[in-house]
């Protein structure tokens, strides 16, 4: 399959670009909800608009009422989200939770998919335990209790946790904390007894929670997939999240880069446009090539994931690490090349820097993923 978008995908990209540039623009969404101190950190009206375009069901099969598309298409939407810094639960709900629900029972799908498709529901993932993304180690326990399970443990960096109607929780039903096997995924409703969340606002104005589970009682039908066999589903959810975050990072990088090159063509110093200085031109040109390469790696990973290739794991980590590197460079160069005004809240370039920082941590940073590339390569 060629590594560029098909005609259908290019049409989707046009739609997503227009939609996000109009409705999801920085002033309209990110700044607005930040400035009013919104407890969700995003707007539900916009989320309904996502649903009206069918985007909330982008990864949901046609049989289940969705668009039945793949990671390439989800990535197209995410790149536009990144470019406009649009706050939304798209990545956690429509990409990651939807990937988990694809393996769920008809009962669970019936309970949660309609809300996703209509844009009434928001979902979150409770995977990380601790400050860094280390999903190889899961200590949260689920022990058999009555007809179901009792969950206890703590989760961190639960993005959109306090806004979520349902949380996908990864817990251990067997084995030791570091075992690959013995994991089970649960669909946990927000209002269940024993679940508490401590909401925190992050540097990019998005909301996450520290989540506690104290003997949370769940029926057996809350299990997504197989008991003790959740690692495979979890890996699929992680891949979806990582490649999705990579696509969003590419968008962040591109948005920041476009702002910066525009500025280089406007700002005058020493009687010249600063874009005439070779010291800046070469840095901009280098950055251009890094972003292009990151986008190529991301599309490659999306395609391999959609094709179910055994090389997908490796490329997903390459994409997450490379997109993270490119975006990090893009925002740093962006602020530096804007000079003093790059430090002001009035200019958007700093917002890109903040979003990049949060996105870098989400689902593993470049160091985690470079290490994973090494391990998958046998060193």
């Amino acid at each position, binding site marked *: 399959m*060629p*590594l*560029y978008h098909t005609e259908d995908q290019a049409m989707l990209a046009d739609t997503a670009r227009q939609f996000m540039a109009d409705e999801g623009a920085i002033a309209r969404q990110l700044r607005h909800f930040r400035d009013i101190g919104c407890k969700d950190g995003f707007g539900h009206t916009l989320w309904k608009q996502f649903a009206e375009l069918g985007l909330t069901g982008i990864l949901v099969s046609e049989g289940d009422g969705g668009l039945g598309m793949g990671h390439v298409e989800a990535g197209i939407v995410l790149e536009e989200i990144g470019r406009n810094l649009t706050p939304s639960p798209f990545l956690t709900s429509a990409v990651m939770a939807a990937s988990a629900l694809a393996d769920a029972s008809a009962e669970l799908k019936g309970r949660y998919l309609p809300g996703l498709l209509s844009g009434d529901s928001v979902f979150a993932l409770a995977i990380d335990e601790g400050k860094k993304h280390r999903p190889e180690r899961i200590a949260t326990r689920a022990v058999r209790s009555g007809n179901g399970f009792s969950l206890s443990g703590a989760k961190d960096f639960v993005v959109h946790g306090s806004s979520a109607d349902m949380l996908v929780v990864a817990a251990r039903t067997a084995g030791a904390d570091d075992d690959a096997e013995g994991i089970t995924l649960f669909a946990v409703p927000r209002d269940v007894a024993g679940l508490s969340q401590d909401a925190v606002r992050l540097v990019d104005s998005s909301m996450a929670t520290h989540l506690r589970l104290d003997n949370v009682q769940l029926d057996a039908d809350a299990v997504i997939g197989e008991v003790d066999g959740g690692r495979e589903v979890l890996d699929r959810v992680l891949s979806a999240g990582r490649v999705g975050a990579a696509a969003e990072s590419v968008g962040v990088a591109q948005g920041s880069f476009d702002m910066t*090159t525009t500025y*280089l*063509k406007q700002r005058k110093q020493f009687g*010249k*446009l600063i*874009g*005439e200085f*070779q010291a800046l*031109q*070469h840095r*901009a*040109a*280098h950055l*251009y*090539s890094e972003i*292009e*390469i*990151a986008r*190529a*790696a991301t*599309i*490659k*990973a999306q395609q391999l994931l959609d094709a179910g290739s055994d*090389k997908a794991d*490796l*490329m997903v*980590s*390459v*994409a997450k*690490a*490379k997109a993270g*590197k490119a975006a990090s460079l893009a925002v740093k160069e962006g602020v530096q090349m804007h000079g003093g005004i790059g430090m002001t809240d009035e200019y958007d370039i700093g917002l890109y820097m903040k979003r990049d920082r949060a996105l870098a941590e989400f689902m593993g940073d*470049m160091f985690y*993923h*470079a*290490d994973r*590339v*090494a391990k998958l*390569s*046998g*060193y």
Partner: protein
Amino acid sequence: MSELEAFRQEIRAWLEENCPPEMRQPVHDEDDICWGGRHFQFKNEAQKLWLTRCAAKGYTVPDWPQAYGGAGMSPAQAKVWREEMNRIAARPPLSSFGIWMLGPALLKFGTEEQKVHYLGQIARGEIRWCQGYSEPGSGSDLVSLQTFGEDKGDHWVVNGSKIWTSYANKADWIFCLVRTDKANKYQGISFLLFDMESEGVSTKPILLISGYSPFCETFFDNVKVPKAQIVGELNRGWDVAKYLLGHEREMISGAGGGDRLTTIGAVLNRAGLEDPLLRAELAMFDVDALAYGAMGEKFLDEIKVGKAHPAQPNMMKYAGTELNKRRYELLMAGGGSASLEWESEASDGGSRARGWLRTKANSIEGGTSEVMLNVISKRILDLPGA
């Protein structure tokens, strides 16, 4: 079965039948590369057989038209061809500047007669070409070149010298930038083709830091070039040169990536990796290299259907060559003192150290990294005054 799948089966069966087992071994040294030409010494029968069989089917240049010695494959078919070649690790039957550089320029700018004549020779591996571009006083500032062709009615008389002419001492013909109008800088250069056995042509190899001499100085002393041997219009050779440089940059950029998934960390790990900081550097490098591999694939896919930015080869060249230099820095560090050996059998005649030194030219030849960044700034980013 789709048409493309049927095509794949056909190619697979043909390769199975026709690619000699010796040609499915990795390229080990310079001798293993078949460059073709009047004086080419085949390393073995298999190399010769592989060239002959491929040339007969047009497979040395699969996507060129059949009329000019190719197989007339569509972009999708050519990709299948590459994939099937990679699947059995087959060596390219023929490598040449004719295929990579002159061929594409002739396809775009050549007359019908030139295409039939020269492209056919290239496809069959009969003539080995070299490129006469840089001059002692004209490196990055190529357009200042001074080699002059004096108009003598039905021919030019060429005088001057070129430098960094790759394999000039082994080439049969040269494609050469020659000034034909001293008053016009850009529109005073013509793109001429001539035989290296012409009277007045001489070459002198240049010894490099790697200990090899792949480049030559090339001298022209009253060389007679018939008027029919011009490509494109008189004084418009710069257009041809720029087009061709794009292909050269594509070729050099290929050195850094390609559609492969073997990581350098895995290669070095076979000999043991004890240093955690080196491992970390390797991992970060492998991320960049694998990502660049995807970029290479995307770039090829896009260029075949005209979706790539016309100046994108400059980005590929820049990123690919910088990556290749980093690769060799890490290989040297990973190899420790063993990689310093220059002549021993164990070091295969110092192949790693020589290879490391060779890579330093990657970001100089065919346009320096700095020139590439200038071109990206101007043509892709549209930055002012660039």
